[in-house]
């Protein structure tokens, strides 16, 4: 028997209440959970990076280049889960050929291309250009060729040229912040604009997505900065970590406030869908929403960060608390995405019953493939870091 039908048959038996017969199959699985999670990390990491350039937050400077490379590594992976989940990936280029401008999803291609080409790559190129030239001079063979290609053959390291690079980076960051907002806000819009689905349809959705993106991005850079410092046997810069923790704390509080506002608004308006959503929250989503997302992923980290940041703990202890809090935040934000994407499909649009979703282990929609997709950005980041070391102490162009 066809494994799909076998799966649907067991899903049908686990349905409670009435669902439309076509709703037995749950269409957006783990892959579509991973996609907004990853773009969230991109947007968050970029917004953190731009703090240093635009708002002159000097403390977070050590993480600037790392944050940019992280954003790039994750952005390269971002379209893969979408592509893998399509029924016809080979036709995906149609999005560029005949984009339907009224479709939020069609805008993916453009927002993505804009963000990747115009914002991230350009900014990284200008930021690294002088270094690329220096590295090219120092190296030989294939590596020399690689740096020559990456610098597009540029040789000019005159003070005017470097000054222009700085200005360019500043200007691109200025464009980049709204672009990052656009990139993830629009992912929220993909869900928030579906009037058929009361769990998704909310004007707050893009904003909630954005702030959870900032939360996850800051937490990821904090984690990476901590880990890379450990690996390189360097002491992490404590003012920088403290600043990151402060930002993470603020972002978490804003995120929590927005989610609470959304929740209270729904409860107070108490529309037709409230009964089924209540059932959803207290049954299928209880673990992932209340326990993991809210307690473990938001309130826990807020308390930990607030305590560690403003207490007189020794630095090592503080770092550890930050690390644990940031790790919990990642788990929390992932289940936020899960609760939106999967949660929105766990109830029938007839508002009379709950559907069923089971995560498989194998297959394209399975757990293993999902984990591979989440590991891939780190592999890419490893390569990027090897080619374009982001560390302050390895910059060749200090003297120029």
């Amino acid at each position, binding site marked *: 028997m*066809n494994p*799909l*039908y076998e799966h*649907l048959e067991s899903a*049908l038996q686990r349905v409670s209440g*009435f*669902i*439309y*017969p*076509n*709703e*037995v*199959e749950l*269409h*957006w699985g783990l892959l579509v959970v991973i996609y907004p999670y990853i773009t969230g990390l991109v947007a968050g990491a970029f917004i953190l990076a731009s703090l240093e350039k635009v708002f002159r937050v000097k403390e977070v400077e050590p993480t600037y280049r790392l944050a940019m490379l992280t954003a790039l590594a994750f952005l390269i992976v971002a379209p893969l889960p*979408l592509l893998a*989940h*399509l*029924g*016809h*990936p080979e*036709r*995906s280029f*149609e*999005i560029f*050929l*005949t*984009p*339907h*401008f*009224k*479709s*939020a*999803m*069609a*805008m*993916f291609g*453009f927002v993505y291309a804009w963000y990747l080409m115009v914002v991230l790559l350009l900014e990284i190129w200008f930021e690294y250009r002088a270094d690329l030239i220096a590295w090219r001079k120092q190296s030989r063979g294939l590596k020399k060729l690689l740096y020559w290609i990456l610098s597009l053959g540029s040789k000019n390291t005159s003070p005017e040229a470097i000054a222009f690079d700085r200005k360019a980076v500043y200007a691109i960051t200025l464009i980049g912040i709204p672009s990052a907002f656009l990139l993830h806000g629009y992912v929220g819009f*993909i869900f928030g*604009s*579906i*009037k*058929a*689905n009361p769990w998704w349809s909310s004007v707050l959705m893009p904003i909630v997505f954005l702030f959870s993106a900032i939360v996850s991005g800051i937490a990821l850079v904090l984690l990476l900065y901590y880990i890379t410092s450990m690996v390189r046997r360097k002491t992490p810069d404590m003012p920088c970590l403290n600043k990151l923790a402060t930002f993470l704390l603020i972002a978490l509080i804003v995120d929590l406030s927005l989610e609470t506002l959304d929740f209270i608004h729904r409860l107070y308006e108490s529309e037709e869908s409230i009964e089924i959503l209540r059932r959803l929250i207290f049954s299928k989503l209880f673990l992932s929403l209340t326990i993991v997302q809210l307690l473990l992923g938001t309130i826990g980290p807020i308390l930990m960060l607030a305590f560690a940041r403003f207490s007189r703990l020794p630095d090592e202890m503080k770092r550890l608390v930050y690390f644990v809090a940031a790790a919990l935040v990642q788990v929390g934000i992932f289940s936020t995405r899960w609760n939106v994407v999967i949660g*929105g*499909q766990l109830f*029938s*649009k*007839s*508002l*009379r019953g709950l559907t069923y979703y089971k995560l498989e282990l194998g297959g394209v929609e399975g757990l293993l493939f999902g984990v591979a997709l989440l590991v891939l950005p780190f592999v890419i980041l490893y390569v990027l870091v090897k080619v374009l070391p982001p560390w302050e102490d390895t910059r060749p162009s200090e003297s120029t």
Partner: protein
Amino acid sequence: MPDDRAACDRRKFLHDLAKLPCATLLLGVVGPLETLATETEEGEEYYAMGIQVDRCIGCGLCVQACKTENDVPQEPYFFRTWVEHYEIHDDGSATVESPEGGIHGFPPGDDDRDVLRSFFVPKLCNQCDNPPCVQVCPVGATFKTEDGVVLVDQDYCIGCRYCIQACPYGARYLDPRTKTADKCTFCYHRITKGLLPACVEVCPTQARVFGELGTRSSPLHRMKRQDSLHVLKPSLNTEPKVLYANLDGEVR
């Protein structure tokens, strides 16, 4: 005719605007205004279906005929049309069921003493005049034809399933054989030949009525004249072209 000119200019403006990649949001806002400004074009050939709920006997012949006519997968997870059975109880609660979409009819149930009223409701794609599925399709693989029928281009659909998410009526499914979205076409291959949709053809009680909105002498027009009509989920402003007569408020 200054008004016409304005409408025309607006159309041209919208058309030009649509060429800009960043126009999504703008269009989403201006688009509905345009529909306010211009009359809906209901020409001679603008198809619609009427469903007289109080005539449906729940035999399920329509579901069977639909699957046969349109080669819909036989497994009970894919339906272009299906029949729901409603029971409203003394306490006001409702029980709804649709075993295998009602394709084999409905089994005689226990004679429940606390049933206030019960009835069958046939469901299908509502062929919305303002279709959310078409709005969200990223590539133009699902669309509204000039005669008002919403169709899917099986050779162009990328299988992203956004349309399935956007349909408020659960009328779409992903065909497991082609991996593309699919749904009721009003039997487009039949109606364009002057035949009735298969479900209407086999309905033994004329609970289903098919016709053109612009034609005045048709069973559909008679129904529009004589019955109190309702559409499903009117608050979503999808403007369905499947009209229900004598529909119970419990039906969603």
